[in-house]
């Protein structure tokens, strides 16, 4: 029961997803669609698990007055306020109190997340200054490519090409486009193909019940 039932689910659902692609029979298509609908519901349920875990950890912090417990209290407060407003009034903006949930998302969550990610602009500059060292031929290749892409992809590349009177095929934009469409494409395609081979092998091993790490067990036969 601990191992056999989940393995059975994995094999049945996995094989049906594969068979559904090749066999257009309505019986297969209907059951594949039904199983996909079930998977969607279970994935949604897994998010509630995450929220429950978050509440559990932070309640523990607050009740034991651990380090940073006031912040944990702020987390729980904002979580429950958002939860109450969303569950009571729905998620779409219907004006008045029924629009507060939407406003919290647009004017609090959105700017905070956007700003957190915008910090990366500063850190990429700091990392470029401190760590980007041209110590070998390969590193030089990387650096030169990056410079051509950074100049060629933006309008300053067009302006510099015009100022230097570069011929059409040798402008920063053209060189950047050639880099992207040929050497970059070849390498990216190799990565795609390699990753695809790995993913197919792993997927088949899981669907055939050979790979069982997701059950908390070892690999084949264990």
């Amino acid at each position: 029961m601990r191992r056999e039932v989940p393995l059975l689910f994995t094999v049945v659902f996995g094989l049906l997803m594969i068979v559904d692609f090749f066999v257009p029979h309505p019986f297969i298509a209907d059951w594949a669609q039904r199983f996909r609908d079930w998977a969607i519901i279970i994935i949604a349920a897994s998010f509630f698990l995450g929220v429950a875990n978050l509440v559990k950890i932070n309640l523990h912090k607050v009740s034991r007055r651990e380090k940073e417990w006031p912040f944990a209290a702020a987390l729980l407060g904002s979580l429950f306020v958002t939860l109450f407003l969303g569950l009571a009034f729905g998620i779409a903006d219907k004006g008045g109190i029924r629009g507060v949930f939407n406003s919290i998302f647009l004017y609090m969550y959105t700017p905070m997340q956007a700003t957190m990610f915008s910090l990366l602009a500063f850190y990429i500059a700091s990392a470029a200054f401190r760590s980007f060292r041209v110590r070998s031929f390969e590193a030089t290749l990387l650096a030169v490519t990056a410079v051509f892409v950074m100049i060629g992809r933006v309008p300053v590349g067009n302006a510099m090409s015009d100022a230097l009177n570069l011929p059409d095929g040798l402008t920063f934009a053209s060189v950047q486009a050639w880099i992207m469409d040929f050497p970059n494409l070849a390498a990216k395609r190799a990565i795609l193909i390699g990753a695809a081979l790995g993913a197919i092998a792993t997927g088949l091993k899981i669907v055939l019940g050979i790979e069982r790490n997701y059950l908390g067990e070892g690999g084949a036969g264990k």
Partner: protein
Amino acid sequence: MSLATRLEKLDRRYLFLVILLAVLLPLLNPLGLPIEPTPKVIGLHKAIEALPEGSVVYFATDWDPSAAPELVPMAQATLRHLFRRNMKVICGTTWPTAGPLAENVLREIGDECGKTYGEDYVNLGFKEGREVVMVSIATDIANAYPVDYHGKPTTSYPIMADVKDFQDVALLLNISGGYPGTKEWLQQVQRRFGMKMGTCTTAVSEPEYVPNFQSGQLVGLVGGLAGAAEYERLIDTPGTATRGMDAQSLGHLAIIALIIVSNVAFLLRKRSGKSGPP
């Protein structure tokens, strides 16, 4: 302490200031640098131009606030183009945080172009399931989305009257911020259902999709704020992306300058006989 060593030990907050000024100053004083559309962006524009009027386009908005500065201008520009060409737009998302952002963009551009919700466009909202739900949507839209973003039955809208699955959709346009996104739509829907597909994606992801553009799986690829600015140029309506390109340009030059300065300092230190980290 030599100049080279002092440079290498510079407090990073000075570097932050350099980047801040490089980006802020052109926003306050625009330079008007020229924007030239590139083939991948032109590809999407041409594909939309070639669609018969009244065609149904599935507008898959898979993003969150972290990608909004790049993707919202693209969404606005492509949506303007679709509405000007009188396409019917069905919007859905597989990201929980995209619903309100997509709703804002749809309403803004829909009102600007005189379009009516439910007749010319509809926002189906979020559906969980990542690549699993993508196949479900392509197979039966109303089954995957029984109600829209506002909680009303999907089939009650006139736009959905003749649309059951992706056989009824002329173009899949994905505005993609990461996973799940373009890669998953390509894997699960584009080839399987023979869809014409275009993508507007973050700059980080653009190099990854070049092979898919070259193979013909994508009819167009709009990447980053630069791609959005090019699309605004193609539809002759400059917007946020166009205004941001001068700042983008100077930001890049600042990074290149930092790389050059740090490597010159490194080489000077190396030549003076000290090797290894400072």
